[in-house]
């Protein structure tokens, strides 16, 4: 049934203000889950705590895999990523000197390919990567793979592609559609679902585009003021009074 993430007694505060307070939470029991909530609810912080980008004040995050629990609290970002827990970024991020192709090659390179003494395997490596890169270039409609990602949309797509190329077990997506042209969001989500099926990958999506959430997620978590207030099927969450009052009531109705 694949990997799940288990959070216990997690707490994070900034300057005395608690921004995450989660006694217990299991994520990615379902193939595609949603994490919704108003701005400032602590959604991004929760993902940063899970991936090791930041450390919690107290509490633990564990990765449950094949009946074993791997403690990932306190692990470095890169080790968590190597374990297969990866996230796409809310804020646009890129490597300014790498082209689209370079970026993809970077993701595809494993520890064994990377070393100061590895001067000669480049041609084989590129040959090995080429079909995979070609697939993604076509799927994402990148105009020129040897160019840099220029628009915000291209950078956002590239960020997602870099993560998918790592073949993660759990992909956390932080507001993937922000900055993307609307006609592309459907394609991207279709691609992510396809990869999820094919590679046995779980996905957790943070999104304000609720139509998308209701459409693609099997299960939704609702977060406000640093706490997970509710989980359930899209239908249950959508019709819940609390969610309407605290979130959809405002501007997202």
């Amino acid at each position, binding site marked *: 049934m694949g990997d799940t993430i288990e959070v216990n007694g997690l707490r994070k505060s900034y300057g005395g203000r608690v921004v995450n307070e989660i006694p217990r939470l299991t994520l990615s029991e379902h193939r595609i889950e949603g994490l919704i909530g108003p701005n400032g609810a602590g959604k991004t912080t929760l993902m940063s705590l899970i991936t090791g*980008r930041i450390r919690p004040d107290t509490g633990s995050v564990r990765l449950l895999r094949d009946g074993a629990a791997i403690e990932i609290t306190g692990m470095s970002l*890169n080790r968590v990523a190597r374990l297969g827990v*990866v996230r796409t*970024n809310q804020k646009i991020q890129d490597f300014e*000197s790498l082209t689209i192709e370079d970026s993809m090659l970077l993701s595809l390179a494993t520890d064994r390919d*990377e070393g100061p003494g590895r001067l000669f395997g480049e041609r084989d490596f590129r040959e090995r990567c080429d079909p995979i890169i070609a697939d993604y270039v076509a799927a994402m409609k990148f105009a020129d793979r040897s160019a840099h990602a220029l628009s915000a949309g291209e950078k956002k797509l590239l960020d997602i592609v870099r993560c998918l190329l790592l073949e993660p077990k759990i992909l956390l997506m932080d507001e993937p559609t922000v900055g993307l042209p609307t006609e592309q969001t459907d394609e991207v989500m279709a691609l992510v679902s396809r990869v999820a099926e094919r590679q046995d990958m779980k996905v957790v999506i943070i999104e304000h585009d609720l139509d998308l959430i209701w459409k693609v997620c099997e299960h939704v978590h609702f977060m406000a003021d640093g706490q997970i207030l509710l989980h359930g099927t899209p239908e249950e969450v959508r019709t819940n009074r609390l969610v309407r009052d605290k979130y959809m009531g405002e501007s997202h109705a």
Partner: protein
Amino acid sequence: MFDLLTSYTLFSLSTVMGFVALATLLHLQFGLAGIVNFGVVGFWGLGMYAFGVLLIQFEVPYPLAMLLAVAIVAAVSLLIGWVIVDLNDQAVLVATLAFGTIVTSLVTTEKWLTEGVVGLGSVPYPVETGDGALWQFVVLTAVTAAIVIYAARIAKTPYGRLLAAKRDNEPLARGLGKNTSRHKLTIFVITCALMGFVGTLSAPVHRFLTPDLIGPGVTFSAWIALIVGGKRHPLGGVLGVALTIFVFDFVIETYVPVPSEHAATVTVIKTIVYGVTLIVALMFRPLGLLGPGRKRGSR
């Protein structure tokens, strides 16, 4: 007369070649991996002096003394690298600059080892036939060429892309599973050890080792050359040294007859021209002559 010119020419060219090697190693450290090493002279000077001291004070056999000197530099850079690996750029700059200064002052004060300002002499060429200087120049050139070729090649491998990614956006690279700390440390130690190796090759060129050989000017010259030539380009160090150190320390000193009462003026002019060149390069070509020009509308 001709003999004198030749040996002086070889001395100058060997010095220039040493700078090409240092500037190219700095390209790997800073241009590629983004490590702000302002202690270039420390690693080079430690290699040079450790070799000289082992050879002369302890009478260690020539090749072994070289090997040990490089090992010492590697060990010291591992220690420094371990301290600075996850610090920010400013802290790395200060720490490496301090290291360079420490090496210079230890060399001056620890007279029992280094003979201080009197000078440690004399470091012979490995082969003391008449052609020692020529062979040393050939070896230095070969080593420098190997470093330049390595720099050109590594940029186009997974490792080169990894270092560039680390330099551009380290958290993003780590998010993709890249152990940037480990790779930073590795490339730092390798390149610093090579700076030390170049130092061991430079020792017989200077013959008498004195503390004024290892002043901060060495670091700044390597930096200016790299910035002028193009920090991101594997040939940036070569071009930069050709336009700065080569012009002053070789062309002008060798071929322009400067009356001895004006010799000091040349040094001052050199410093001024270096400074102006650096400013002009940063204004019009922030990535150096071999880098792309400043884009319209960019920062």
